[in-house]
């Protein structure tokens, strides 16, 4: 436990005995320890890339995510080649031209790849208009080919929408829902946990019983029941409202664990010398809580929060997969995976599992990051 007594002004600090390490502040020591952890840095850098891709998704993906291409229903991912039309290797990738024809025997539309016609991939190309981050209006895409041909990095779904674009845009919700939910859990959990541990008595009893009740429900069924109570998206209830309330539902369960741990911490600090000294000096309750207790518990709160993010992301994915969380036309990874419920569909069109791959990668990166943060903050724990 990293218990650091806050310096009391009256006691002279012994300067000469401080070693090299002691010169560095606690926080930069943690940062150094974190930077030395390769797995944790992988998590951090990977997540930064993922967030960047998702939030600039409309620009990164060659197609607009709601565009329905009826000629490309369940179309497979576009094939790339680095052999140019002249038969020589070129740095610029090429794609084959495709046409949609009616199969005379099965009467299904099938996509035919014309191996003789190669189209150069262009960068910063004009394409579908889009709005990015709510205020950037543009029609420039990072890469693409000349219309009417299109690039589908990860194929298309049942009504011919670009899976790659949808996965990137879906990440905007899936990758933030966990963070917002955790921040809300931290706020609720810190307030209630501190009250419970500091004031004890009746407040403590009530809060502990509430936590016990919430913990005695299995998580996903409870989340599902709460999410089912949310009204559908309409004029008076916007998509943003629903998103926000889903995070509230997720943190309704999430705060309990943190509140319990914080209660134990606060109780331990209460009997510690530095708090007793503050009480004896006549400090107010709020000063003791905000100046003496919470800063000491900060590293613990951050660690608990970092380790809780993956669970929240998985929770949102499960809820949306069940059709109770984020609902179409909003896109999130869970909502996209709802289309992949039948084995036969997955077998024929494996690329519709791309959002699932994105979930797994994101959760893994968050696990690495969380473990790294814990090791950096709390060097004595296992």
């Amino acid at each position, binding site marked *: 436990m990293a218990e650091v007594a806050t310096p009391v002004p009256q006691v002279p600090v012994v300067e000469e005995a401080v070693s090299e390490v002691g010169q560095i502040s606690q926080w930069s020591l943690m940062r150094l320890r974190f930077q030395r952890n390769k797995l944790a840095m992988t998590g951090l850098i990977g997540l930064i890339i993922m967030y960047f891709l998702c939030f600039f998704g409309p620009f990164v993906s060659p197609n607009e995510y709601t565009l329905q291409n009826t000629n490309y229903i369940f179309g497979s991912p576009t094939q790339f080649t680095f052999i140019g039309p002249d038969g020589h290797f070129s740095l610029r990738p090429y794609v084959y031209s495709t046409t949609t024809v009616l199969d005379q025997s099965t009467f299904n539309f099938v996509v035919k790849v014309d191996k003789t016609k190669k189209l150069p991939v262009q960068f910063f190309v004009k394409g579908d208009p889009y709005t990015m981050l709510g205020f950037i209006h543009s029609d420039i895409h990072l890469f693409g080919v000349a219309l009417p041909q299109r690039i589908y990095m990860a194929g298309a779904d049942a009504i011919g929408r670009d899976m790659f674009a949808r996965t990137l845009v879906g990440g905007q919700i899936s990758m933030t829902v966990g963070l917002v939910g955790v921040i809300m859990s931290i706020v609720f959990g810190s307030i209630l946990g501190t009250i419970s541990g500091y004031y004890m008595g009746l407040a403590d009893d009530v809060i502990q*019983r*509430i936590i*016990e*009740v919430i*913990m*005695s*429900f*299995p*998580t*996903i*069924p*409870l989340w*599902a*029941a*709460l999410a*089912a*109570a949310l*009204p559908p998206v309409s004029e008076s209830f916007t998509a943003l409202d629903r998103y926000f309330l889903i995070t509230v539902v997720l943190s309704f369960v999430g705060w309990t664990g943190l509140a319990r741990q914080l209660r134990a911490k606060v109780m331990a600090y209460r009997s510690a010398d530095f708090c007793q000294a503050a009480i004896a000096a006549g400090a107010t309750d709020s000063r003791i809580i905000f100046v003496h207790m919470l800063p000491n518990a900060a590293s613990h709160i951050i660690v608990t929060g970092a380790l809780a993010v*993956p669970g929240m992301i*998985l929770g949102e*994915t*499960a809820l949306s*997969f*069940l*059709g*109770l969380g984020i609902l179409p036309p909003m896109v999130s990874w869970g909502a996209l*995976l709802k289309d*992949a*419920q039948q*084995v036969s569909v*997955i*077998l024929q069109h494996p690329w519709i*599992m791309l959002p*699932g791959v994105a*979930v*797994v990668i994101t*959760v*893994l990166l968050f*696990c690495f990051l969380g473990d790294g943060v814990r090791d950096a903050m709390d060097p004595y724990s*296992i």
Partner: protein
Amino acid sequence: MLNYIIRRLGYMFITLIIVAVLGYVIIELPPGSYVQSEVDRLRQMGGNLTQGQIDSLYRRYGLDKPEYVRFWLWISHFVVGDFGEAFAYNMPVSTLIWSRLGLTLVFSLLSLVFSWVAAIAMGVYSATHRYTIPDYIITVLQFIGLAVPNFLLALVLMVFAQNVFHMQVGGLQSSQFQNAPFSLPKFLDLLNHMWIPIIVIGASGTAWLSRVMRANLLDVLNMQYVQTARAKGLNENVVVWKHAFRNAIHPLIMVLGSSLPGIISGETIVALVLSLPTTGPLYFNALISKDMYLAGAFLVFLAIALLIGNLGADILLAWVDPRIRYE
């Protein structure tokens, strides 16, 4: 010990009452009752309902009474085994619920046993063979178990089983055994359908528990008394299993209670994907169609199952660790 159990039962009873209240609140939470949507449906079919008919519908389900009266009606019927009507199925909730709840418990218990056996085996092996290739493989498996949502794992395993083994996955019985009388082949077929759900439900628990087990055992193996045991010339197996393991298992029993919610909630969602006849599919469908008496009864019963499980875990812990009994 008896004292401890009685006190623990007292706490459980209080929690149970609050669980029932919360369960009722959740039943009442969704906007628009089932009766309202029933009225809308009848109107759409062309029948013009008079206000009197609507009122009688409301009266039939007691929707005209104030909240606390309705709560009392619900809870007093609940205790004697009348959980209300499942509107969408037009039959009492109690006839729908029992067989499915039983199967949920069977799957949850088997998954629990599986995750414990697998976690202990994996944890002990990777702790005693630290920094070898199998240890790294186990670490990778643990991360996958934690990071892959269990419904996705179920889907992937289904695709895999169908593609590679040409096995028909999903449900509890193959179609040819559906109505057959009980026999050995039918039983084997049942087992054949049960292992995938059990692995999938237990996966994340296994990953987490085996990490805890590995860390604990590593701690204990560094203790001096383990060194003493080795120095005495004891067999390494005896050192690990008799001296170290017994002291490392304690935290695992402590988290038994908190691993139960994960297993039960995992069971409900995996059952939906694998179309098992347990609570999961019925519960989520009830939520989507706002069949709230059915959903509420399921939720309360899942919570009760969890409370009983927690009670069992606490008693087990008190039995293992005398300090808790005399607290």
